[in-house]
């Protein structure tokens, strides 16, 4: 004991002399964390119309009309206290909450019209332009009512609206639309209606918000929330363990560090990203469904989930794992190398490809992903399919799969992921024949009429009670025809200090948004 103390003191002395202090100061009125975009990260993008992630953080000071509940199961009111959908699903009426912008001005239906029109306008850089194209008019019968008129029913509209943050017309209407995407306003003086107000952004370091005492949901319990940025995962984990921050999104590899530690609470949730092996349909080797089925039977998904993911994943037999979307009786593709070999023999694999190498491209470049790729390679080799993993960074991956004149063999097979919820229609962009590039992101060039018909039927379903059944049909076709070899949906993790009270966080895709009630977050001394 004495020796340990002496050693600790000896090691500490030089740094203590330099820093002039011992334990790092803790402030009970400030919550610090890494709230979005990977471990310890933060959104580099403060413009909610061009952001593809970071909505957990953005929704601390900006709010949408409607928002997902904290289970990502239902869309509920946010800035709209209530909403109604017309029987023909072409009119959405929103009754607005009595809210005020951070500069004191009232939030009105004029702001809703301004925001929706801006979000529909591709010149504003909006990611929502195509998704809101069905909106033909925004009517404002009074200051507290906004009506969206649609040219045709759009089952995904409410899901899209959860990410459309309301913007102040009085602050932004003077800025030319073309200047808006990267205008300094977003990172210097943005105002919203949320429980916190934007305070300060220090490039590459942190963003600070201060409490909005006039928030309609009550004054926040802490004075400030700071989103810290860590380039390196180790830095975020170190800051969390040393108590400098109270929350961070973490990689599954780091979860074990916090297990059985009473100072931390591990939050596990569905990633809503289905991982799959994409069969490039422009490459002849995958044309025969028996070959694709052989791939599924060759891979021992249960073993990979157990030994590499530590059980933190659900096997996916189609694009979905939610019980409501998976019909009974579909093929579970049990690990069966003998069956895989027989299917390959039936298909004439020796003539189709034999032992020639097939590139297996992925943008997942963590050590865990490298192990998964190695396992898949070994399992496929066992049945006679010779895949060669190629691990690259995201820009390289995108430059290959989105190339104007693609080299099909450079991504003959991919190990990738695509968001599959909370709205199940979201994977349509990667599988429907109408989404072939350049119109969509069907990068594996899937041309399967039955699948396209199933998606079209689901997307056009106006009866909410029948939607799940339509997506079960999509699942059934995916399972039988295997446009992709679906593998699993993994869990994602956040770690929070137990000092954080009433803290709601889930690893929602793109950060949500969802009902997190940040005004209730508190920090025990």
């Amino acid at each position, binding site marked *: 004991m004495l020796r340990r103390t002496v050693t600790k003191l000896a090691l500490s002395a030089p740094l203590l002399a330099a820093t002039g202090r011992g334990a790092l100061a803790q402030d009970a009125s400030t919550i610090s964390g890494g709230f979005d975009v990977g471990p310890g990260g933060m959104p580099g993008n403060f413009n909610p119309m061009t952001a593809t992630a970071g909505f957990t953080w953005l929704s601390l000071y900006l709010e949408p009309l409607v928002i997902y509940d904290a289970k990502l199961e239902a869309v509920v009111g946010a800035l709209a206290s209530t909403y109604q959908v017309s029987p023909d699903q072409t009119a959405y009426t929103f009754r607005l909450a009595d809210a005020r912008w951070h500069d004191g001005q009232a939030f009105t239906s004029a702001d809703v019209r301004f925001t929706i029109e801006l979000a529909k306008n591709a010149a504003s850089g909006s990611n929502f332009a195509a998704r809101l194209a069905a909106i033909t008019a925004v009517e404002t019968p009074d200051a507290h009512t906004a009506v969206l008129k649609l040219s045709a029913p759009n089952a995904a509209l409410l899901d899209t609206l959860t990410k459309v943050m309301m913007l102040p017309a009085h602050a932004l209407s003077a800025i030319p639309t073309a200047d808006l995407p*990267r205008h300094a306003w977003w990172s210097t003086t943005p105002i919203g209606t949320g429980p916190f107000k934007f305070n300060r952004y220090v490039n590459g370091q942190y963003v600070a918000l201060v409490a909005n005492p006039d928030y309609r949901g009550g004054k926040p319990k802490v004075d400030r929330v700071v989103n810290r940025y860590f380039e390196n995962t180790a830095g975020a984990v170190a800051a969390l363990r040393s108590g400098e921050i109270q929350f961070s999104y973490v990689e599954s590899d780091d979860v074990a560090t916090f297990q059985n530690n009473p100072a931390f609470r591990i939050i596990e949730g569905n990633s809503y990203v289905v991982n799959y092996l994409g069969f490039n349909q422009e490459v002849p080797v995958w044309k025969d469904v028996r070959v694709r089925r052989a791939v599924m039977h060759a891979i021992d998904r249960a073993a990979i989930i157990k030994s590499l993911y530590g059980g933190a994943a659900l096997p996916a037999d189609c694009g979905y794992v939610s019980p409501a979307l998976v019909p009974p009786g579909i093929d579970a593709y049990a690990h069966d190398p003998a069956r895989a070999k027989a299917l390959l023999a039936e298909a004439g694999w020796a003539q189709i490809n034999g032992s020639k190498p097939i590139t297996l491209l992925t943008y997942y470049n963590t050590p865990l992903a490298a192990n998964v790729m190695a396992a898949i390679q070994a399992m496929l080799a066992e049945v006679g399919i010779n895949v060669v993993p190629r691990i690259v960074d995201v820009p390289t991956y995108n430059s290959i799969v989105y190339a104007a004149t693609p080299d099909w063999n450079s991504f003959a097979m991919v190990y990738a992921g695509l968001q599959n919820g909370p709205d199940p229609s979201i994977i349509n962009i990667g599988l429907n024949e109408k989404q072939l590039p350049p119109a969509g992101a069907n990068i594996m060039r899937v041309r399967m009429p039955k699948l396209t018909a199933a998606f079209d039927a689901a997307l056009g379903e106006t009866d909410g009670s029948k939607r799940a059944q339509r997506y079960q049909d999509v699942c059934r076709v995916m399972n039988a025809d295997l446009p992709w070899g679906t593998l699993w949906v993994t869990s994602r993790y956040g770690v929070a200090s137990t000092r954080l009270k009433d803290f709601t966080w889930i690893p929602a895709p793109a950060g949500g948004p969802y009902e997190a009630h940040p005004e209730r977050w508190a920090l025990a001394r």
Partner: protein
Amino acid sequence: MPRTLRYTARRLLAGAAMLLALSALVFLLLRAAPGDPVDAYVNPSVAMSPQDMAMLRERLGLDRPLPVQYFAWLRQAVTGDLGFSLQGTGEAVLPLVLSRLGPTMLLMASGLLLAIGLGIAGGVVGAVRRNGAADLSLSVIAFLGISSPAFLTALLGLYLFSVRLRIAPSGGMLTAGAAFSLTDLLAHLALPALLLSIGHTALIMRYTRASMLEVLNQDYVRTARAKGAREFSVIARHALRNALLPVVTLIGSTIGVAIGGAVFIESVFNWPGMGLLMVTAVRARDYPVIMGAALIIGGFVILLNLLTDLAYAVIDPRIKVG
């Protein structure tokens, strides 16, 4: 025009030509690398259509021919306008890079000063006490320092001092959201500077030791001793001054390497310097920031090498520049 001034002007002109060549080379290498800023922006698990990606490219001017893009950048760069970051906040590159230069200079200068002080002192002790216990211990430490990669020492230092001992902040330059204070800055600086200095200390120590051993056997040192000069004076005034010449060269050439080491340290400690800026920019394929930062780092290294050459003349009057 004095000879030194002419020499400096000539070197500065050559430096400008080198910077031009550097900018063209970096531009070409960036375009040859797979993926562009739009490819980096798109999250593969939240798909985007190639049509939308093409619109983004058009808006950023990435659809224009390469020579047009380069000369458009160059025309702006010579007026001091290095364009805007292509990342979310879209900040102007010049103020962004300059704002990161200060923290990098602070970290590098602190690390190098520590390394120079400790390295020269250690080298002198090693040479004077050749093959003694002190020399052997210092040699072992030096070899450990030389053979430890920056990312490893950074991660180990972070774990030991921040997580286990909790005596140093885990990252950043100042406490997030707090008002500036010198104590706070020093607290954040101490650990990364110390870790950055390790490799350089070891190298400078070895060079100083070798150079001192050579000088200590020179006739003029023997003469100084024969004249009855005190040992401290012999070491400090006669031997060390002459032994420092190769060490100064080493320090000059170390600066470029130090920037490389700072990339790791800045990345692990989230120190808001050029290294961190470059890592983030490369990951995002942020062409304007990479070009601007490469130009400014290049200019900085050229300037420091010139200063090193000029320093020779100050240290050794026998050397004439030009």
